Structures are given as C-alpha cells and as structure tokens.
C-alpha cells in the first residue's frame, strides 16, 4: 500500500472505519446552511451534536440537516461539571440520537473549560460499563490518557489548548508522549486555530483532529473547512513519509564534488 493512498488509510474507532480523519464540531455556525456546506467541504464523517432544553422558538431541524449530510452523530456532554450530570446526559443522548457513542466532557472551570480529571475518569468508567463507546475530551496529560484507556475508552482526545482559544498546540511534548503510549486512537481536540495547527497535530502522530470554532467562526467557514481538511491530510502523509532529522548545521543538497575552480 502506498502511503499516498488516503482511501486505504481509514481511521478505526471501536471497530468502525472512517474515511476522514477530521471530526467536525457543529458549535458556532451561523446557520444550518453554513453548517451543511462546511460539512461537505470538510469531508468529515463524524460530527458532534449537543442537547439543551427545548426552545419553542427554534427553527429548522439540526438532525435532519446532519442526516441529509450522511454523517454519523457524536453527541457530547458539553456543559456538564459533574460525573453524574455527564453520565445522565450521555444516556439522554443515546435515547435522542440512537447511538451509544459519546464525546465525554466533564468540565472543571468555566473560564478555561479545562477537564476535571477525577470526574472525567469516574464518568468514563461508568459509561464504558453501561456499554457506551466513550471518546473523552481530556487534558494533555499522558498519565490521565493512559488511565482513560485502561478503563476502556475507545479513543483519547487531548486538548491542544482550551476550547475555542485558537492557541494551537501548547504542549507538543505531552501530545507526543500520549501518542507514544496509547493503544487507542489519539484525537487532537480543542485549540486548533488554523490549518497548520491541524497539520502539526497529525505530524506529531495524532490519528485525527476534532475541530469546531476554527471552522465555524472563521470569516469563510467553507474555505477554512477545506483548508483544515487539507492540513489534516498533509500532516498525516508527512507523519507516514518519515521526516528528516533536525540538524544544527546545514547539509548541502547539491553535491560538493566537481565544483568548478575559477
């Protein structure tokens, strides 16, 4: 198999093959039309949704738009600050969407939206036991990632930087350690600001990237969806192509033998 054959390089999560290594978060799009166009441009096959109290004023059906796009839904537990709330929300999402996949978020602080590690681990274990395919949004902590895998999570999703911050990948060393140890897919989640961040995540060895705000809040979401898609594909190819080592000094690319002497 050639490394340039992306079609033969699927992402496999819990036995399910996905042709795209870009997961799309749906938060922040200004309209369902904009969301639908961005899904198409992104090539994503796995797309997040959330649950909130019903709003009689709401117009248009998000689920209909996502079903028409042919994507698999990945419900999240955004807004949950306790393991109890996250577990109940995941169970409600299973009822609402007919999927046992969940992007598990248990948030510890509303300014940083950083995960609450002990509560995250507790909720993950409970949901795995209840038969869920758990994809936890986690800190860039290699030990926590290992613990999440140990309790049966189907992937780990470390942050590059806080949700919606667009600061990119703040700790590439930790992300490499997470990838080095993990036996499940590593999905870079949160912090991507632009295509190069997504490419870097993939070059570090991440298996996929989840991206919402960088696309939905870009001036042109469709163009950014395509840019980040290409970033993910470029980074993946580069990671598999085997980059040259970094050197302190130059190494000539033109042969030094046979240089004319004037």
């Amino acid at each position, binding site marked *: 198999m050639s490394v340039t054959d992306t079609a033969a390089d699927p992402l496999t999560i819990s036995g399910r093959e996905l042709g795209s290594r870009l997961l799309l978060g749906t938060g922040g799009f200004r309209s369902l039309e904009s969301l639908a166009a961005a899904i198409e441009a992104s090539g994503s096959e796995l797309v997040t949704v959330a*649950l909130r109290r019903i709003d009689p004023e709401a117009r248009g059906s*998000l689920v209909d738009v996502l079903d028409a796009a042919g994507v698999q839904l*990945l419900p999240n537990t955004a807004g949950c600050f306790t393991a109890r709330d996250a577990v*109940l929300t995941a169970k409600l999402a299973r009822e609402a969407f007919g999927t046992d996949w969940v992007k598990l978020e248990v948030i510890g602080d509303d300014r940083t939206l950083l995960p609450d590690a002990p509560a995250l681990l507790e909720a993950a274990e409970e949901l795995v036991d209840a038969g869920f395919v758990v994809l936890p949004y986690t800190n860039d902590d290699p030990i926590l990632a290992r613990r999440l895998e140990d309790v049966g999570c189907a992937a780990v999703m470390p942050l590059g930087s806080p949700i919606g911050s667009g600061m990119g990948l703040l700790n590439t060393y930790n992300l490499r350690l997470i990838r080095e140890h993990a036996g499940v897919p590593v999905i870079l989640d949160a912090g991507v600001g632009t295509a190069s961040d997504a490419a870097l995540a993939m070059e570090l060895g991440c298996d996929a990237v989840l991206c919402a705000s960088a696309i939905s809040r870009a001036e042109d979401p469709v163009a950014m969806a395509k840019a980040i898609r290409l970033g993910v594909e470029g980074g993946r190819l580069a990671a598999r192509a085997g980059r040259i080592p970094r050197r302190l000094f130059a190494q000539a690319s033109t042969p030094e033998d046979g240089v004319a002497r004037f």
Partner: protein
Amino acid sequence: MTILLNGEARDLAPGTTVRALLDALDVPGGARGVAVAVDAEVVPRGEWETTELDEGARVEVLRAIQGG
C-alpha cells in the same frame, strides 16, 4: 397539579403522560433528537405513552442543538 418543566412551573391535568406533555409542546411524533428525563432518570421513548407525571415532577425535555 404542578410540575417543574425545564426549571419552570407548569400546571397539568392529573395523569398527564410524557407523550401528552410533548404534544402540548408541539414536539412531533418520531422526535429524533429529543430526550426526556423525569426526576433525573431517563424516560426511554418506548415509555413516553405510559409514563404519567406526578405532582412536583422535575421534567427536562431536551433537543439537539449545535455544539462541540
């Protein structure tokens, strides 16, 4: 009787079912993307028709929104 629907008091006839409440909220029959919890427990959609709400029940009716 009075229940708490999504955090707000609402008067209902005694014996109102979850399904009847959803009808009153104009939530359509199939209702993919909708979920209901009563007193912090999931009510599976197969039980919406038969689950009657009690006085003081804390009911959450949730729907799909963009997020994540």
